[in-house]
């Protein structure tokens, strides 16, 4: 049972984590990206279409990455150059993208709900010989797709880049103090755009994980609000990749637990609330703890 739950939790966490890391980078750069859902959905569609067309999961991933990044750039330009309100632009982008993809499905595939395409190559599952048989560790580590590995690798990489590299410091400067960054000769708007492209690209990969990592079909409702869970994760993660990952993983874990317990006859209405409640409780506890520490330091 534990093995199953952990294996499922790892898969359910991947799209949340990828999107949350991107959103975090974007937020540090000064943009709260509410359009991540659109970028995820775009990535999911493009990955499936490209996988079917080329029979290469790698090409499909690169295409999803590029498509997500392109939608991200569009959104960013609207916010940074046209000074559109980021909340309105983000929500508007989600609606518009779902509409546009719906139109493509209808016009091209004569379908407006779900599409299945021929010859789709799914992401490979990396089985680790030796590890696969070990209980718990095997379930968490073995049999995962490359994006799951990438998402976790990005946690320390992002933390390092943000705190220890010139690019990370410039990003934070562009987000926290635009005038000061300009005075230093940086181009804060271009930096913001770059951070949104990264966020869009990661959300695009998250979408690809859903369409060619898990099921091999595309559905207009596929992103299922996951970008908003990711948003909660990076918001409460307070711009720290590690804590953000904890938020995403907690949600993934309790989503897996609720799925599992439902099959055992626990009231479904209660179970479906579980992941949300746990994330709220844990993040509130973290918030309270931080506040206390700050108060103590102040004294």
């Amino acid at each position, binding site marked *: *049972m534990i093995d*199953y739950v952990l294996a*499922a939790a790892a*898969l*359910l966490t991947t799209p949340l984590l990828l999107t949350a890391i991107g959103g975090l980078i974007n937020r540090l750069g000064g943009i709260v990206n509410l359009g991540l859902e659109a970028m995820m959905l775009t990535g999911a569609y493009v990955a499936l279409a490209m996988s079917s067309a080329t029979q290469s999961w790698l090409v499909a991933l690169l295409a999803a990455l590029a498509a997500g990044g392109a939608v991200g750039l569009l959104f960013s330009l609207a916010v940074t150059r046209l000074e559109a309100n980021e909340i309105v632009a983000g929500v508007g982008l989600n609606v518009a993208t*779902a*509409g546009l993809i*719906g139109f493509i*499905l*209808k016009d091209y*595939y*004569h*379908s*407006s*709900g*779900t*599409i*299945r395409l021929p010859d789709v190559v799914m992401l490979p599952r990396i089985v680790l010989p030796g590890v696969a048989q070990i209980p718990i560790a095997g379930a968490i580590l073995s049999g995962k797709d490359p994006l799951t590995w990438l998402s976790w690798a990005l946690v320390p990489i992002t933390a390092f880049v943000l705190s220890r590299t010139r690019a990370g410091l410039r990003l934070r400067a562009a987000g926290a103090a635009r005038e000061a960054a300009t005075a230093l000769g940086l181009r804060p708007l271009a930096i913001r755009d770059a951070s949104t492209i990264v966020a869009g690209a990661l959300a695009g990969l998250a979408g690809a994980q*859903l369409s060619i990592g*898990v*099921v*091999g*079909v595309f*559905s*207009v*409702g*596929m992103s*299922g609000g996951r970008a908003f869970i990711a948003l909660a994760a990076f918001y409460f993660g307070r711009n720290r990749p590690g804590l953000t990952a904890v938020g995403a993983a907690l949600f993934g874990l309790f989503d*897996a637990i609720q*799925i*599992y317990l*439902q*099959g*055992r*006859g626990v009231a*479904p*209405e209660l179970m*479906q609330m579980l992941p949300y409640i746990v994330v709220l409780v844990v993040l509130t506890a973290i918030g309270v703890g931080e506040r206390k520490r700050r108060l103590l330091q102040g004294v």
Partner: protein
Amino acid sequence: MALGLVASAAWAADKAPVALIIAQGGLGDQSYNDLADKGFKKALGETKLEGKEVESKDVVAQGENMLRRAADGGFGLIVDLEYSHGDAVKTVAKDYPKVDFSILNLVEPGANVASVLFKEQEGSYLAGALAAMVASDPKIKGIGPKPIIGVIGGTKSAGIDKFIAGYIQGAHDVDPKVEVKVAYSNNFGDPAIGHQMAKAMFDEGASIVYQVAGGTGIGVIQAAKETGHYAIGVDTDQDALAKGHVLTSMIKRTDLAVETVIKDYAEDKFPGGQTVTLGLKEDGVGLSPMTYTKDLIPAADLAKIDEMKKKIIAGEIKVWDVTSQGYPSWWPK
């Protein structure tokens, strides 16, 4: 309008065109909407009536709007497939007494409203009975040691639990010891969640999982194929989605319902103010022909299913209907 006065059954083409309001999930769902659309196109072809499908991105919230626009747009019959449009149909039908309305899966009042109900519980009963028989036979490929089956619903609601109750009853009439796992995805368009939920059930020892969850269910079928177990499809014949891994499909003949209503309208026999009920007897629900699995299933089991079907039609077996009878005492706690 002058033409309308001289119109007769033989000149159906003179009647005002027909609109079909597509439900959530949209065309291309390879399920409910697509099947209804098939019946729609067939009826239009045979009656030579004009007609159009009406879709909206926000079908639920736009119900009344869509109906009014169609009624204003000169349609003479509006067939609504969306379950949440009950109130909207009732309201709009009152304002447009000259337009005929038909709603599926619900009963709404009005002399110009025809309601069509399906006895999904009857088809689901047969699906549950077949699943229980097959799951109790570990000699069949893909069947685990314990007789466990499952069902995944789109939402926890009476409309979905009607299927689930029939499924459980059918399974337990075959063998009360068969365990039936029940879960809900809370979403009709998220195949990734359907996939995870089905895998959880298979992991827990289930051999067959019935999906009553629209697009989410596509993920259930995919999981059955991956793990070498079985899924049961819903609404349309989904057996070909994973050949050999969809044990059967509980087909709901939405096409028949739409076709019948349109033909009746064309022949001036529109059943306004009435409720049409389609069950096993009317061939409105039933199991698929099992094109890819019938060789896997012992002939004795199939014969038994046929016998059960006859008993239900004869009224010897009464299948529980959650929508009219509420929840049975044996509903899983």
